[in-house]
């Protein structure tokens, strides 16, 4: 049995009232509900306030570069498919600096769970617009207001036929824990975009703002229907849907490598006899 205590309790560097605390709790709960022990999971993150989360979790951790958590996680998963991998980082990290890796991870359908702490702002660098910031948002760096359309990760993921696309809200810990548990259970790439208030820098998308708009999809909702999913994916504004928005069945990326059928690369030793045969071909 795995208990929530196994994942520890740590002092954080987050602001009081930050949505990150609830996400951290949900992650722990999701892991416990999945009966995954700390030494079985690797949590990879980038750089940002969200990316500090793994440091507050008693688990294997790789805290890498801003925007580059997904490639690190992909390499680790290919080296050792037995590792259960969670990638946890911010909206800037995943949709900004790391945008190209986000697209690639969806295309690969690599088996890991991406939890994006989406506060629609660059927190750690003190409040510049992030790719998900609302149009018109005014910051020190965007005094005339954000002019770019906000990036809708859900819409892009569904359009790309990602195999598991969900949205959670830090204000609904149990629901979020459920999504994380299902994401971990999903074979393939699981995107969980989590709406998270940043009390210090995002004065528009506050806890109340989200609370007022977020609703959870009904049990009738058919997440396997792409058209419905696409419609739901672009829902934003007065009503913001939470839950699994789209899912499909597709072999996860690691499965495509025949060598991995023999088990993880790590631990496999080098067959010098085989190499000798290969070298004979050069003669």
């Amino acid at each position, binding site marked *: 049995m795995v208990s929530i205590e196994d994942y520890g309790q740590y002092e954080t560097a987050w602001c009081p009232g930050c949505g990150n605390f609830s996400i951290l709790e949900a992650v722990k709960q999701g892991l416990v509900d999945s009966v995954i022990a700390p*030494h079985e999971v690797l949590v990879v993150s980038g*750089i940002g306030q969200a990316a500090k989360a793994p*440091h507050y979790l008693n*688990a*294997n951790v790789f805290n890498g570069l801003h925007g580059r958590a997904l490639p690190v996680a992909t390499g680790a998963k290919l*080296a050792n498919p037995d590792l259960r991998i969670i990638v946890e980082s911010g909206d800037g990290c995943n949709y900004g600096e790391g945008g190209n890796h986000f697209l690639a991870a969806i295309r690969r359908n690599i088996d890991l769970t991406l939890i994006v702490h989406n506060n629609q702002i660059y927190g750690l660098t003190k409040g510049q617009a992030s790719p998900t910031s609302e149009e018109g948002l005014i910051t020190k760096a965007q005094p005339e207001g954000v002019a770019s359309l906000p990036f809708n990760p859900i819409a892009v993921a569904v359009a790309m036929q990602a195999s598991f696309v969900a949205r959670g809200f830090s204000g609904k810990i149990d629901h979020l824990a459920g999504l994380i548990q299902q994401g971990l259970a999903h074979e393939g790439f699981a995107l969980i975009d989590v709406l998270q208030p940043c009390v210090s820098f995002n004065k528009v998308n506050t806890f109340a703002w989200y609370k007022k708009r977020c609703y959870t999809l009904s049990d009738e909702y058919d997440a396997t229907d792409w058209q419905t999913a696409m419609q739901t994916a672009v829902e934003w504004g007065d009503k913001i849907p939470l839950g699994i928005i789209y899912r499909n069945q597709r072999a996860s990326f690691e499965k495509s490598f025949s060598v991995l059928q023999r088990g993880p690369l*790590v631990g496999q030793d080098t067959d010098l006899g085989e*190499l000798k*045969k290969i070298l004979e071909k050069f003669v």
Partner: protein
Amino acid sequence: MEKNDVTLLIGGEAGQGLVTLGQLLAKILVHAGYSILVTQSYQSRIRGGHNTFAIRVSTEAVVAPRESVDLLIAMNEETVTLHEAEVADGGLIVADEAHGTDTDGCLQVPYQQLAETRLANVVALGVVSVLLGLDQALVARTLNDFFGKKDHEMAEKNRQILTTALDWCGQQPVTFEKLPPVAKPIQRMLMNGNEAIAMGALSAGVKFCSFYPMTPATSIALNLTAQAGRMGLVVEQAEDEIAAINMAIGASFAGVPSIVPTSGGGFALMTEGVSLAGMTETPVLIVVAQRPGPATGLPTRTEQADLELVLYAGHGEFPRAIYSPGTVEECFWLARKSVDVAAKFQSPVFLLTDQFLADSSRAVTPFDIDNLEPIDPGIATDASSLPYNRYAITPSGVSPRLLPGMSKHLVVADGDEHLVDGHLTEDLKVRNLMVEKRLRKEQGIMAEVVPPEFQGDESPDLLLVTWGSSKGSVMEAAAKLRNDSTRVGILHFSQVWPLVPDQFLGYLESAGEVVCVEGNVYGQLARLIRRETGFGVHRRVLRYDGLPITPEYVLRELGRA
């Protein structure tokens, strides 16, 4: 009469099958027991343009390319015009009767008459083998092995064309000095630099390769891919170079020796990742196959101008090792050593090659795989101290390494400054301890440095210093100079960082004139030597036009041609 040092140059458009012809000839020559060295020159296009495939062949060891051509096989008219001048006395041009210059220095081949256009290269193969006096059975067999498996009908057609060509050529009244036969051919491999790097990495247990295609590094990844199934390897084409280096770091963190092949521009994108490998102390082998820059430069040519780029790549300060093989054999052994050193010191390690060496097939004595010393992946089986501290402070600076998910112990790696347990810290005292711990690893790396190789006369009048792929040309130039009764030495660096002055300063100081020979415009090794020893080389022979340094080039630049 015979000639024991022949250079043949095949020229034509991309797509005319001249590389196939060249490779067939190379294979035949090596089987026949000759020593060869291939120099390929091609353009950044898929069809057309002007490409060449040169083979220098001899019964003696061939260590460098040569500029003058004995046998010019022109697959098109342009080749004749462009290379006529390079043909040496007694040399011969083999050309289509439509293109050839009508002199007795030219054998005019009625290609149209002997074969359909797309198989002209088979005709050329026949002609050349007659001219060089190669064993026709061997020629036929090699040709057959090449196509046989794929396509029998094709093989048959080729055989016929070959026979026709051999017959036709036998009847021509040409006088071209044949190669002296090799009595007892010893078995050798035909291998180029990139193949050797791939094989060396495999021999060292590399099991993960992430890359983004880039000439001239791509073939390293393709060679690994070709063996992935048999050697239990995952090779992944990444979405970009940043992903490639970070994937390799992830795979290595999880416990699998990893390699990342790239070239200058792609490597530039990886430098932040290099810094991450340095900070997280994750072993990774990065192969930088050099080509002329800046920016896209001359993407299919050669240069040695990324030494400084690699030496200072990545922000912040951390130790590294940089190897620069001078031969195909060194590509194998140093790729192997790189993996070893990366694992031992949990650091990024670099292998610098270039287009010339990457594409240069040579006759290589088979590696003694049975007696390879095993490589220690540097992974502890259990935590020395509990709780496990990934970054435990040690005298060597190397901390015992465990793998995530392979034991109950938790492994925490961080690109922020961190505590011994891997979690981030802003404690400035710990910062100093960690900087110093990482730096101490440099001592260990120093102790493993491959000393520069000195050849030639003790305290010579002239010492030629070089690194990487220029080795052979400098050796041959030195030999030539020695014949004019100069006392000459050469010093070749197959590892350019770290430098250990005790290993070479004596040579520099005891030489009359010290000349550094490099394929770049700044003399990057020369200034690095000065930085590390204070010794300023007296003169530099530099080349930066995209072509490999040749013995002739060195002699010309020294005014001794």
